[in-house]
């Protein structure tokens, strides 16, 4: 279930950007081609170091993939990093059929939380970040301070107060209890803010206004395409956070029908911790593998945007 290796993977391979490169218009491929004629020293130490890091990052993933093919019994009496018997498809079938297909339900719940929660958070962060970066108004500094302050407060610390508040409003044990807090992403807002300040030149906005476009038209037709890489970056951050969200659902949800995958897998794992519980480590492992596949897919598909988004931010730093 860990996504650490994934998070660090693309970061490591992000291309450093030379100043003066036309922003956002150059795909990484071309950047590489252009860079090729430059003199580059090859460092053996660096290669070895990176290979070691790569193996270190891939090892848990390999372990997960290998052990998802083992039966409950074989998990205990075989070497952890090699195969024994091949029961992946029966594990997969059992994972989805166990307890009346509750796993499929959890998968759909997670998708719901991600699409509505992370999607909504990205939308709000984009609108707010753009607004703060491009418009002057009274109290802007106060908003800035609040956002920066909010970045520093861990979501975990807010979970219990949020629970007490939501329980007064009768929202606990409903999907809203997960979706509403997920909509707030101070870090995403901050990122979009700095990104908008850089990526959308005031001149372009000026000329759009001169041509008679209203602010909304300017935003959607002119600014939004320029913000693309930043939006994808924030979206990825939010998707990962929401997909892996554990503590908030743990506090908010009691009804298993609304559980996300993280919480559901944890209850399966906990069955081994109690007398008479059905021990299903094989399903926990297979379920974990299924859980991380959509994240891997999201990263592979959005990787190029993510990279250019990051590098655009790095120019400023």
């Amino acid at each position, binding site marked *: 279930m860990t996504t650490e290796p994934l998070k660090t993977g693309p970061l490591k391979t992000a291309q450093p950007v030379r100043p003066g490169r036309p922003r956002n218009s150059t795909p990484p491929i071309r950047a590489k081609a252009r860079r090729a004629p430059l003199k580059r020293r090859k460092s053996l130490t660096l290669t070895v170091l990176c290979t070691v890091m790569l193996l270190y990052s891939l090892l848990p993933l390999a372990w997960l993939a290998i052990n998802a093919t083992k039966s*409950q*019994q074989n*998990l*205990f*009496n075989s070497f952890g990093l090699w195969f024994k018997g091949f029961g992946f498809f029966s594990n997969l079938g059992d994972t989805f059929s166990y307890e009346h297909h509750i796993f499929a339900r959890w998968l759909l719940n997670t998708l719901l939380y991600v699409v509505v929660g992370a999607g909504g958070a990205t939308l709000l962060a984009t609108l707010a970040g753009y607004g703060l970066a491009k418009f002057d108004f009274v109290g802007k500094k106060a908003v800035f301070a609040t956002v920066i302050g909010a970045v520093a407060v861990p979501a975990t610390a807010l979970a*219990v107060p949020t*629970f*007490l508040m939501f*329980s*007064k409003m*009768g929202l*606990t*044990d409903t999907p809203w209890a997960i979706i509403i807090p997920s909509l707030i992403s101070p870090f995403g807002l901050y990122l979009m803010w700095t990104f908008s300040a850089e990526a959308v030149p005031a001149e372009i906005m000026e000329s759009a206004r001169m041509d008679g476009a209203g602010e909304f038209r300017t935003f959607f037709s002119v600014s939004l395409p320029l913000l693309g890489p930043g939006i994808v970056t924030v979206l990825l951050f939010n998707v990962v956070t929401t997909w892996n969200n554990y503590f908030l659902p*743990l*506090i908010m949800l*009691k*009804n*298993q029908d609304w559980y996300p995958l993280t919480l559901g897998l944890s*209850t399966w794992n*906990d*069955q*081994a*911790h*109690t*007398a*008479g*519980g*059905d*021990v299903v*480590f094989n399903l926990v492992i297979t379920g974990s593998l299924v859980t991380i596949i959509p994240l891997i897919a999201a990263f592979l598909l959005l990787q190029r945007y993510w990279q250019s988004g990051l590098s655009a931010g790095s120019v400023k730093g």
Partner: protein
Amino acid sequence: MTITRRRGVLLGASALAVALAATACGSSSSGGGKSSSGSSQAASVSDADLQAALTAGGNLTVWAWEPTLKKVVADFQTKYPKVHVSLVNAGTGNDEYKALQNAVQAGKGVPDVAHIEYYALPQFELTKSVVNLDQFGAASLNGTFTPGPWNSVQSDGGVYGLPMDSGPMALFYNQTVFTKFGITTPPATWDEYIADAKKIHAADPSVYITNDTGDAGFTTSMIWQAGGKPYSVSGTTVGVDFAGDAGTQKYATAWQQLIDGHDLAPVSSWSDAWYQGMAAGKIASLTIGAWMPSSLESGVKSGSGQWRVAPMPQWTAGGKVTSENGGSSLAVMKASTNQKLAYAFLKYATVDEGAQTRVDNGAFPATVKQLNSPDFLNKTDPYFGDQKINQVLAQSAGEVAPGWSYLPFQVYANSVFNDTAGKAYIGGSSLADGLKAWQDASIKYGKDQGFTVK
């Protein structure tokens, strides 16, 4: 139902402090009136009333993680179609208690019925989160349950839950491994047990007689069997004394020999490594509650046919004294708006048809009727080489040492066991000193919470 993860219960702590203050204020005025109102209510709710509540129907929310309850709830709804029960797994053990305390504090989302282990029940009773079931006539169930569990749900003359299962202790051992090391009869005394432990570990350093990395539930159960009474509780006055308790010292001295010899597998109970150790024959036995068979069959499938059950080893040769390990009850929450119906469900699940359903699905009964039924006693199980294990376990249930009580803040105390007594298992101190440190930590917490600590 023993669980091993220990986490701080900070939320519980504050809730406890508030409730305790309230208790302290109220106790002087209501001390006399409580029992009289209890008895008058006892007369007002009869079996007919409960039957009427069941027929009238309603909605109940039950928080429990016990697997056999699913079937019980399904049967219950078939029998009483107007009652709708939503069974919610709000976490195992500590996780559920935390959620329960959060809900009580928030005043919303509190279930009607909650699954609470015996060691945790006093905490909920003291915070007045659960209802005294005397008002529904629970006192008349005296004799229905075996003595150990029945004592566990009573406090200050009230009944705060109905026992769901019990865990009289016994020695579960892998006969194949024992035989391999020349142990033909399971140890009958702790002296023999220690000798066997050393014999096994000396012959093969990768094999251990059992595992122990410091488990509060196991330790207190062992002290309980040794005749120790380190905890004394009377209302909000509590005493914690491991240092001067003879039973504690007897246990600590014996167990220290195993710790010193590194004869205990450094594996925590209920962990993946624990199941793996048993499956590989590296952990040869467990002294544990009678609810263990179904966990062995599900978690250690490869041990089928190898395991056997023997009486718990004794402190004196020929003795017949055991203790309880784990076990849990169902309680009615004070915030429930339909307490009568909730109690009717409790009775169905623990005394009436539900008790049999649960035993049929692998739970160990807390009821005398199920425990003594010939079907139960004569049941054989190929996992245990067709041994009639229930005879051993039922006998243990009848030999539980009386007079044990847990602290009203045992959930917290258990959560700090590893920070204090746990050090003994990694050579940081002796077990006796570790238990003294646990005592000090418990006393400090008790005082902070407003208890009078002796």
